[in-house]
């Protein structure tokens, strides 16, 4: 491979990596905010993402609703589904079982329920694509070719993440969320309503997943199994340290770029291996993840 081609590949890999990475980053963020506050890895995140995509598809394509109705309706549905799952299912499970593993299993249950529901409707039988809302004309950035849709995906994802960071770090509600993550007992003491706070976090996590679905679904074939993309988001979260919000985002971009680089420089068949390779390398060099902070021993 000559240098000229390698340079083009490099630029293309970064550009495409940032686009797919922004979707992984969103999903990783959705996983990490839940993990930080509930100590539960939500294994249904991928299916929430998938189901939100189908809600949008159903409303837009089958019900012919205008897009300004479809978008808020999809986000609202994702919010309510997740908030109610937290309130109705998880609070109940947590009440009867002290061990967190039951909550984790409940999220696995949710993933099967959502997948089953979508399968039953039959919309998932034929792979479909959500119509692109932004033209897919190509533009050149340096020597990399991206579509306007790609730019819109990247821009929206970054804006959503920025808004979320602002909320999490600079508002009273966000401070309450951080407090719950650090010390639920003390948070309760200062008057934070744990139940409401958890519902809000799960709801927001659903909204972020739905945004990811709306962004990426014009670019992929939608099936009931499209939620498996969440493996990459988990990879991103692990690379980032699993409890760090910036870590999740950086991890998402890293996974996206590594994937594209491997596809371009090695082989497209090696792409599936790339995220796991990235996890292995990061965990060997920095077991706590890139943004995991110092390794600490938990006092018991």
């Amino acid at each position, binding site marked *: 491979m000559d240098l000229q081609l390698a340079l083009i590949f490099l630029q293309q890999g970064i550009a495409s990596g940032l686009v797919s990475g922004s979707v992984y980053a969103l999903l990783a963020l959705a996983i990490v905010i839940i993990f930080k506050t509930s100590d539960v890895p939500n294994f249904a995140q991928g299916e929430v993402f998938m189901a939100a995509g189908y809600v949008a598809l159903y409303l837009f394509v089958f019900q012919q609703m205008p897009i300004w109705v479809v978008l808020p309706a999809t986000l609202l549905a994702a919010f309510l589904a997740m908030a109610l799952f937290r309130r109705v299912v998880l609070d109940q499970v947590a009440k009867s079982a002290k061990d967190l593993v039951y909550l984790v299993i409940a999220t696995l249950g949710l993933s099967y329920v959502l997948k089953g529901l979508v399968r039953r409707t039959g919309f998932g039988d034929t792979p479909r694509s959500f119509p692109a809302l932004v033209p897919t004309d190509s533009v050149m950035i340096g020597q990399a070719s991206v579509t306007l849709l790609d730019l819109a995906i990247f821009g929206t994802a970054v804006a959503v993440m920025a808004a979320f960071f602002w*909320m999490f770090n*600079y*508002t*009273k*509600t966000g*401070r*309450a969320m*951080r*407090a719950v993550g*650090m*010390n639920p*007992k*003390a*948070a*309760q*003491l*200062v*008057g*934070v*309503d*744990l139940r409401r706070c958890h519902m809000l976090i799960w709801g927001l996590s659903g909204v972020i997943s739905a945004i990811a679905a709306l962004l990426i679904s014009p670019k992929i074939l939608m099936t009931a199994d499209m939620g498996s993309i969440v493996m990459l988001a988990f990879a991103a979260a692990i690379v980032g340290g699993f409890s760090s919000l910036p870590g999740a985002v950086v991890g998402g971009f890293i996974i996206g770029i590594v994937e594209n680089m491997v596809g371009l420089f090695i082989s497209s068949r090696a792409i599936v291996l790339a995220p796991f390779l990235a996890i292995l390398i990061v965990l060997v060099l920095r077991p706590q993840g890139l943004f995991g902070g110092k390794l600490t021993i938990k006092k018991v």
Partner: protein
Amino acid sequence: MAGETAAPFLDVVGLTIRFGGLTAVGGLDMEVAKGSIHALIGPNGAGKSTTFNCISRFYTPSEGRITYDGRDITRMPAREMAGLGIARSFQNLELFAELTVFENVLIGAHVHAGRSWRDAISARPRGIVEHVEHLLERTGLSAYAQTKARNLDFGHQKMVEIARALAIRPRLLLLDEPAAGLRNREIAALDRLLCELRERDGITILLVEHVMQLVMSISDRITVLSFGTKIAEGTAAEVRAHPAVIEAYLGRETTQETPHG
């Protein structure tokens, strides 16, 4: 029924707490007068912290009633305590380790930050920042405002807990072993602060404490527990002279710090 002014600010009646077959506290009656400093003492395992956790609603009693300012709070959820003006500190610190001292105290003012949408999204609600700065000054923490709580020494961390509790603007302050692990100089500062809170702010304080030097100097009234029951109650002098107390408590333990836990 006593008249309105005579009714105790905090009234614990027949409080019983069982864990399985173990009765941690059995039929405890205790009255805390408004504007007083009331200490709850007793040997390790006497049920002090259990009682404490019941009053602050982290445990629910098996039997009995807790009335605060004329309201039955026996079964209220813990998060509503802050709104009622009840604040507490923990024996084993429960700080927000990754937040700064300032933020820790600021979050204590959570209930006062308003319920409006505007307040929910505002980082530093009006009026609250000044209050937090004032509290940091009173607790001697101004210099550490921007330090992460986890990086402070133990004595200062305890002060952060008290400052955070004060940010709730409590009328009843529950302190679980505030002096444990403090050095003499720090205990003296705590002594001054608690007296000032009683005199200047009119805050009623109920504390569980092992450090007799502090208990005897500041308490208006002392309740002594042993094996989950009250064995004596009265002023410092009365309690000190009480034979049951001497036998159960002072006879076995020195008047200096004892390991807690």
